[in-house]
């Protein structure tokens, strides 16, 4: 095959799907937006923090939930399991655990940086996107929640977004119910992971129940295809555990099924077998859990409280939400364009949230656009290896989405000036002249470096939106002047060098 001519022409290299080249002027606009948002956070005492884009995969496996984990850019590099960060909160908390634990609490951080999720790209969803956010570490309770809520609202207001919907929820309601139902942590995770797609209408409740029951081993308790009929564990269940284990091991050995499994001990295998047999069918539990989620979605206002009370659940989650919202109003009115909604079924894609959670949506032509969200995650520090749990909360914006949602900015005309030499001999003098002009505050002074003469320089200036051109030739140098051309009026004047700065300013600023 190598003897044959190349049939296929070398193809241009495309950017990776779901990523963007941020070109001018979008780059300046986005950097400006990020700076504006972060400056707002600094006024509240938040300090900037940067963490690496690559992280150990493990950091996100612990508490992120399947919505995130299944969409990570993960890879092995020299036997180290790494990933591109899908978000920044876990990284900030890892940094806190590593180096900042001795500091007096609370600690306040703001950050901005690219995050990566392997999702189907769409208008406002990219595989690389920029998170801008804050974390408030070491404070529990509605006062801290309210500060974070306020920062999220205020930032939008600062950049001109006055119409949005703030949805506030609390994981506590659902977590309480799951615990009341006696669901295992694994089962709880499976339910929590499906709350978000249900809330967004991407998954219906019956399908969710079937999925979770299936993943929990099916309605029959998962005995299908098992090596042991379900009758044996039933019979053994009535015996004391040690005796049951011994008998089971003996029977299995006689059936020439030696219980051995490399890293698993026979004792564990048999204990799990017996425990499994005693476990109830998960269908009812799962059904009840999703029914509750659906109920929380439907209930409004005071019905939520009575709904919780009817099930014998604590109303503390609702109290916390109401407490935080009433404190939020102490920061000042949100404005007429802001709708606030309480929805205790709100679950974000991340599994580490433990308390109040919120999301902010802006109405766009293509429907609601989520521009930011966050919440309280009191267990993350412990999940990441901390000795005690540290209360913390935070939120982040999707920078590109905030950009998309805010009103279009007026086109800013840059005060660009081009200084060009008439011939190569004049170039050093032109460089010195440009250097002087850059002392004028606000001026953007470009130097002609192609040295193709005044005509080419003027054509370039015309095509690239340069407002003024300063030309310098032998004759001008002899006379101590420069030619200043206003590219909009096309008028040329000969200006003495000592008056040039003022004349240029008058043309472009």
């Amino acid at each position, binding site marked *: 095959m190598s003897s044959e001519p190349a*049939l296929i022409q070398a193809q241009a290299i495309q950017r990776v799907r779901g990523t963007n080249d941020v*070109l001018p002027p979008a780059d300046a606009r986005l950097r400006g937006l990020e700076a504006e948002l972060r400056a707002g956070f600094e006024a509240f005492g938040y300090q900037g923090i940067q963490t690496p884009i690559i992280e150990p995969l493990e950091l996100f496996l612990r508490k992120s939930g399947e919505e995130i984990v299944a969409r990570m850019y993960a890879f092995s590099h020299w036997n180290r399991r790494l990933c591109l960060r899908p978000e920044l909160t876990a990284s900030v908390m890892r940094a806190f655990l590593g180096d900042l634990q001795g500091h007096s609490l609370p600690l306040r951080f703001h950050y901005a940086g690219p995050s990566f999720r392997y999702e189907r790209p769409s208008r406002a969803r990219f595989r690389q996107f920029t998170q801008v956010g804050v974390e408030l570490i070491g404070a529990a309770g509605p006062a801290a929640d309210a500060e974070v809520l306020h920062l999220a609202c205020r930032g939008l207001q600062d950049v001109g977004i006055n119409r949005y919907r703030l949805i506030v929820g609390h994981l506590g309601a659902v977590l309480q119910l799951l615990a009341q139902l006696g669901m295992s942590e694994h089962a709880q995770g499976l339910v929590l992971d499906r709350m978000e797609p249900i809330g967004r209408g991407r998954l219906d409740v019956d399908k969710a129940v079937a999925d979770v029951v299936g993943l929990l081993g099916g309605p029959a308790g998962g005995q299908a295809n098992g090596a042991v009929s379900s009758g044996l564990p039933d019979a053994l269940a009535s015996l004391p555990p040690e005796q049951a284990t011994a008998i089971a091991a003996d029977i*299995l050995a006689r059936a020439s099924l030696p219980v051995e*499994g*490399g890293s*698993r001990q026979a004792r564990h*295998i048999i204990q*799990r077998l017996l425990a499994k047999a005693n476990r109830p069918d998960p269908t009812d539990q799962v059904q009840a859990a999703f029914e509750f989620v659906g109920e929380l979605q439907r209930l409004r206002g005071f019905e939520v409280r009575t709904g919780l009370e009817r099930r014998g659940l604590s109303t503390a989650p609702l109290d916390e939400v109401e407490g935080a919202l009433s404190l939020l109003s102490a920061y000042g009115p949100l404005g007429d364009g802001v709708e606030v909604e309480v929805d205790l079924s709100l679950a974000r894609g991340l599994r580490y949230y433990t308390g109040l959670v919120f999301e902010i949506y802006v109405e766009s032509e293509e429907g609601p656009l989520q521009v930011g969200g966050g919440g309280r995650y009191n267990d993350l520090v412990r999940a990441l290896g901390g000795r005690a749990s540290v209360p913390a909360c935070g939120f982040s914006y999707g920078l590109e989405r905030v950009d998309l949602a805010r009103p279009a900015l007026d086109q800013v005309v840059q005060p660009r000036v081009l200084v060009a030499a008439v011939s190569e001999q004049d170039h050093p003098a032109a460089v010195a002249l440009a250097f002087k002009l850059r002392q004028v505050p606000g001026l953007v002074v470009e130097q002609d470096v192609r040295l193709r003469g005044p005509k080419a320089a003027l054509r370039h200036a015309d095509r690239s939106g340069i407002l003024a051109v300063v030309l310098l030739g032998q004759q001008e140098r002899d006379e101590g002047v420069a030619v200043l051309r206003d590219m909009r009026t096309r008028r040329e004047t000969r200006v003495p060098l000592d008056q040039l700065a003022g004349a240029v300013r008058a043309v472009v600023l």
Partner: protein
Amino acid sequence: MLAAERRMSLRLALPSKGMEEDTLAFLGQCGLSVDRTNPRQYRARMRGLPSGPVEIVFQRATDIFDEVNAASVELGITGYDIVAEHRSEEDDVVLVHAELGFQRCSLVLAVPEGWVDVSSVADIAEVATELRASGRELRVATKYRNLTRQFLYDRGITYFELVEVSGALEAAPALDTADIICDLTSSGVTLRENRLKTIAGGTVLDSQACLIGNRRALLADHTSLEATRGLLELIEAHLRSRHQVSLTANMRGESAESVARRVLATGDVAGLRGPTVAPVFAKDPDPEGGAWFALTVVVSESGLLRAVEALRRAGATDVTATAVRYVFERDSWTFEALKRQLQPSKAGDPLKTRTRTTAWSSS
């Protein structure tokens, strides 16, 4: 120029080793013969296409995806499991025919038989958590890293480690280099011999042989696309003909119409569209009067006896049955589908349809 003259209309990679025999048998059934002067040679010619001989390159099934992607061959036959594991959003490989109907197997999770407490994927999730609590990771040996990882993640299982095993994967649990495996199985015999068992919900992928092609190479060269069409026609016609039988019979009647009506009235011999009825010019005049007609109809193998019985009831004699080798339809459906796949998909790319800022759209 010399090289261009030597080039045949199409280059097709075929799997060597395990899949070779089945692949050659399949092509043979499609009327395509591969002559290899020497079984150790890895190049051969395939005859049977009107567009001329096809250059055959024998390669390992696992390499064929890469060879097609790199356009060193236009087409290749390999396992769907390999395509599913190796394909990415931005490769140049199109699935020309997804189901060639042979080399059927499944990619499955298998656990030691001794794990009597494990019968479903849900148990795997718990065992992974249990091992994790004792400071260990569930080790999964597989050659299908992408498919396995995604399968487990999608089921909420995140605590595991994929391990690479050289040599027989099935032996990994016994040798304690892995806890469970994810591997291909067709009959399950190898798994059982290694004291492994499959579990409920543990099928990652069902696979069979498939035909893949290089998008750009097929688009760039009209002759190879035409040759591909010929190849697909034969494959499709063969696959459609499988388990079909052509029946012919003689029947007496007043007219072709009345014979056809009687046959259709039985309900069991409708054929692909309906029976073909043609007059028979009898060598001896019929003493009972009336004319003879010959009838041809294609039925499925499973309905053969029922169809013969129905024909007898309608008055047919001399029923013969022949296996159908090809069924050609008016258009090759898979070729039409291939042409659609080859269309550049730019219109559907959401990044290209952004309206607001020019700087974000593609350059």
